[in-house]
């Protein structure tokens, strides 16, 4: 089952730590959002494989926008 990792708040994508095909474990860093002058790390909600990157570095995202898709 695929799961979208969504933006917890509006911000700019500062860096992406994973690529399509990467295996991730729960709590692994997925990407970093810059918002409210702070860098917020977004973590993987579960174990899986990255099946899609929905954003690129520099993108402005809104709250709940999908960032990365993780599949089994």
């Amino acid at each position, binding site marked *: 089952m695929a799961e979208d990792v969504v933006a917890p708040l509006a911000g700019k994508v500062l860096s992406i730590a994973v690529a399509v095909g990467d295996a991730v*474990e729960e*709590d692994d860093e997925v990407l970093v959002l810059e918002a409210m002058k702070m860098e917020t790390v977004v973590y993987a909600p579960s174990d899986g494989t990255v099946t899609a990157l929905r954003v690129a570095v520099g993108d402005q995202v809104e709250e709940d926008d999908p960032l990365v898709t993780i599949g089994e």
Partner: protein
Amino acid sequence: MKPYFETMDRFGKSLKPGRVKRAAAGAEALRAVEADIAAAARAVEEAGFPAEKINQRGWMTVYQRLEYLLDPGTWRPLRTLYNPAENEEGVTNVVDGLGKIEGRWAVVIGFDNKVMAGAWLPGQSENILRATDLARRLNVPLVWLVHCSGAKLPEQEQFYANRRGAGTPFFRHAELEQAGIPVLAGIYGTNPAGGGYQSVSPTILLAHKDANMAVGGVGIVSGMAPKGGFDAAMVEELIAKTRAFTARPPGDVATHHDATGFFTRVYDEETGVLDGLKEYMRAIPAYGPEFFRAAEPKDPAFPVDDLYHLLPANQKEVYDFDEVLARLVDGSERLEFRPDYGPEVFTGVCKVDGRLVGCIGNRQGYLGKGYPDYGDYPGMGGKLYRQGLVKMNEFVTLCGRDRLPVVWFQDTSGIDVGERAEKAEVLGLGQSLIYSIQQTGVPMMLVVLRKGTAAAHYVMGGPTANRHNAFTLGTPATEIEVMHGETAAVATYARRAAKEHAAGRPLDPVIERMNALVDRYHETSRPAYCARHGFVDEVVALTDLRRYLQAFTGAAYQNPVSICPRHHMLLPRVIRG
């Protein structure tokens, strides 16, 4: 009270390899700052004459005296780099900190006899007053190693006079004595004038056989006939008088032991004086550990080295404060106060060496949808909102009621701003927190983990809480300033930039000034500057933080001025319901 204190709630989790790898550069940056601070501390220790030269004169250095006096492994230096007047000697010329002597905590302070035979220097009075304040906050003895040649005369205008000048510590000694706190002094060498009062103002005076103390020394006695200037004949007369006086300086042991009896005891050996101090320390009131331990001491459940991978060197990076705390307190256990309210701060009861302490710290990161409840903007940890301020007010009030010492951990960018925040009373609640702290009457310490900014640095148990803050520690990530440098540059130069632009003039000069201000903020807010200027009392390696917590709690519970029996405490019942 077993259900409350012996089995608290476990928290924290082991570091994942990915986190260690990700934080490797940050950890290296933190360790590099620690190495710089350690190098600066070594330079302070090596100030003045080399130890060998002092030993050749038959003296021990102040550091050798401390080593002999203190229980091994218990020294927690404070104000090592403190030098607010930027003295060319690199020191204020006193060495102080918390240490155990014969198993009992004391504030220990000594003149550095390698530097101008322990002279008064600019900044020293404030350093001493911080040590006397610390003894008062913790209700523990103040132990002096006096070896003070008096004022550095060419710079007297910087420290002799004034409200908090070189004479103020003598009044503080009297205050401590009136509060029942003894001031013990080991006295060495020549102590004229100010040195005389440094020697005579403590409670118990233990002197080395070659020590003296006097209202005035040889130099003053010889030169007491001012004529508006000097000529060669007068200087020759002075030389003759000085030689005559050097045979026996005033106020030696024959005078102040045999005649006046001011010296309580006199010892032939330097170490004898220190043995005497140990003997008196054995006689001070101090409760055994069984009195106030709520549980058996435990190490934290996770390695302290993890801190280098948890506390980011990058000031913008979000991290988990709870994981930091889990590396510092007994068993990584806590009783959290109001976990569902005011998510931007942790408040809770923890244990250090089995003794109860209230802990408060800023949480970091996005606070979730709908918070703050009065705003339509996202809340970020590090900032304080209405609920967090209310929660801290409640918590410190209950800590005061239950007589729990408080440890604050700051990493704060300030209190929320804007009209909605004002209507939510954040300004008033910040001052309420100051009021709440002020009525507790319990000792507090502060660790500025990373940012100490804006009024939040004051209200969260900052060093500005003079009557409660025992001491403040910095870390290699500490940054203390009224606001971030870039924010300050905008506030200072935005209008100017607009005017220049409207006038069609080049913006480069404004940009240059803005960047210069940012650089200045950076330079004056970082750990070494904070330590030199007393914004923090010591910059501590992350691996040493728990040792200072142990010293603070151990000293705070050694002879507390008031007690709340554990079974009468309210806070644990409020937490557990």
